[in-house]
């Protein structure tokens, strides 16, 4: 890991107009950076805005406000042509290995697409060689390059998705819940592969997930998202040892541990009610406010440990 900030996100907002005059603040004022070679984990429950944040950072969605600097360049200010070139540096691995591969494409079409878009493979033979190299890199049999996605298992498909992201030699990859659709026995394979690739290629990751134990394992630092805002950010060891925000605490206590002894003695914190998502803000179903997300500016409580001011 180096000291320079490869990614700097400042004041990032993404609002959706959901009709009837209601505005969904999916991502509300995000501020963070990711160092080169670092893995930043981002956790939160469904609807907390973490996937939207990932997509907005890659400019798959246009932001409502804010900036994302990649190596000092604000990507939202780039012209379409420059943005296209920038996409070689920033890639994404998607959650659903079934939905993220075009069912009408063969594996070599899928992986080769980025090569074609950016004109990275001179000849047919070169293209074929590069695809085989990528398949090999993710541990897939290159004999299967002419097969279609539905013929592969979930873990194999996810590796195809990884090979696709690697095709353009990116520096930064957003992993959007890359393992949550996979079986337990396969998750570790994919996580190990991602770590291994990071070491070999010097990649920087934003690792979005809801599985806290896996996030802790892969990340250097972890950010906790709640209702579109970041409520806590710390080194992964520190966050798990010393959670401050009540939401982080609840989340940690809810993780089921595969050990009957621990489970039998565990005291579980629960939030009063299910959340209805960001539209009804922090209101529970009986209308009581449970968590204050208003005073959400992050303050540093100890070195590198940031938490929403209301709880600092």
């Amino acid at each position: 890991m180096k000291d320079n900030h490869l990614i700097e996100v400042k004041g990032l907002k993404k609002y959706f107009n959901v009709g009837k005059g209601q505005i969904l603040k999916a991502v509300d004022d995000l501020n963070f950076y990711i160092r080169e070679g670092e893995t930043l984990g981002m956790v939160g429950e469904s609807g907390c805005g973490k996937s939207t944040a990932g997509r907005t950072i890659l400019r798959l969605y246009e932001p409502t406000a804010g900036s994302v600097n990649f190596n000092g360049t604000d990507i939202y200010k780039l012209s379409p042509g420059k943005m296209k070139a920038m996409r070689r540096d920033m890639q994404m691995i998607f959650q659903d290995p079934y939905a993220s591969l075009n069912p009408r494409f063969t594996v070599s079409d899928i992986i080769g697409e980025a090569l074609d878009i950016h004109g990275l493979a001179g000849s047919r033979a070169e293209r074929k060689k590069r695809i085989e190299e990528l398949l090999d890199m993710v541990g897939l049999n290159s004999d299967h390059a002419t097969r279609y996605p539905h013929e592969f298992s979930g873990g194999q498909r996810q590796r195809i998705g990884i090979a696709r992201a690697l095709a353009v030699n990116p520096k930064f990859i957003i992993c959007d819940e890359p393992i949550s659709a996979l079986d337990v026995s396969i998750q570790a394979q994919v996580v190990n592969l991602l770590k291994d690739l990071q070491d070999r290629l010097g990649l920087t990751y934003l690792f979005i997930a809801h599985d806290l134990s896996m996030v802790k394992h892969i990340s250097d630092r972890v950010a906790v998202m709640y209702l579109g805002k970041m409520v806590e950010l710390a080194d992964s060891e520190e966050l798990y040892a010393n959670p401050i925000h009540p939401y982080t605490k609840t989340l940690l206590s809810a993780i089921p541990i595969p050990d009957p002894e621990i489970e039998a003695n565990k005291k579980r914190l629960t939030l009063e009610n299910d959340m209805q998502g960001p539209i009804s803000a922090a209101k529970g179903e009986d209308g009581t406010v449970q968590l204050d997300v208003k005073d959400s500016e992050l303050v540093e409580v100890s070195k590198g440990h940031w938490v929403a001011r209301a709880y600092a």
Partner: protein
Amino acid sequence: MEPILQVKDLNVSFHVRGGEVKAVRGMNFEVGKGETVAIVGESGSGKSVTAQTIMRLIPSPPSVIKKGEVIFQGQDLLKKTNKQMEAIRGKDIGMIFQDPMTSLNPTIKIGKQITEVLIKHQGMSFSEAKKHGIEMLKLVGIKNAEERFDQYPHEFSGGMRQRAMIAIALACKPTLLIADEPTTALDVTIQAQIMDVMKEMQERLGTSIILITHDLGVVAGMCDRVIVMYAGEVVETGTKWEIFKNPQHPYTKGLLRSMPRLDQKKDEPLIPIVGTPPDLIKPPVGCPFAARCDEAMRICERVDPGATEFSDTHMARCWNLHPMAKEAQSS
């Protein structure tokens, strides 16, 4: 313990283009009264197919129950007519599915969905059923149950829907509840709540539960006994203590090893299970796990191993547990 459900030599296949997928291959297990049994395994291991076969909800075609018996309270469910099964489903056996949005009827109010089962199976009048239904909604932790009674499923959040589903499944106080990945679609904090509700309801009603899941964490918190399935077969069974503290089958060991623990150091790599599960259109002749197994031996590729018992409750099927394996390795 007196078993209320015995599954004997169950074999279920699917006919697909290109052949027959042997999804469940000789499944045997029992569920005792008031017991919670987890069936764990990865997708395609046959755990959901087993659950659906017990309920006779498995679509046929394409599936075929090749052979076996499902003895529930002394009667073979596989010999029942559809009409007879309808009287059992919802009354003696309840079921909860993974996705409460698709298993609740979106056009019918929650209250009506509960009272329907009560009127059908218990012969209650509407007002009795409504009273009982509201009581059930309160029991599963739904606040303002009277108001909620008249709402539609889409007005409920995911966790609330699953609570409602539990209330419906348990409304007639069934002897057995089959929960097929009940929390997979939910967030962890909600998952914890739903698990608590299920445990509480079980204590109150004495229901036996079959919990189908892939999450070993959930198993550790919730179950008495565990059945580990792989490629349509049972590879290990035992109490949760036996399975978590003294696993014997390499697959079980591998599963436990491949999960990161919160107390694990960051640089400590995960130990994954290599490879991919076999395609059951052509099941391996030997042990189905052999191609992914660190401890595989020559025999494993040729012959499917039999059972080795460690206690009255603990059994695993692996050639490494054969006396000759130890001899061969010590020499």
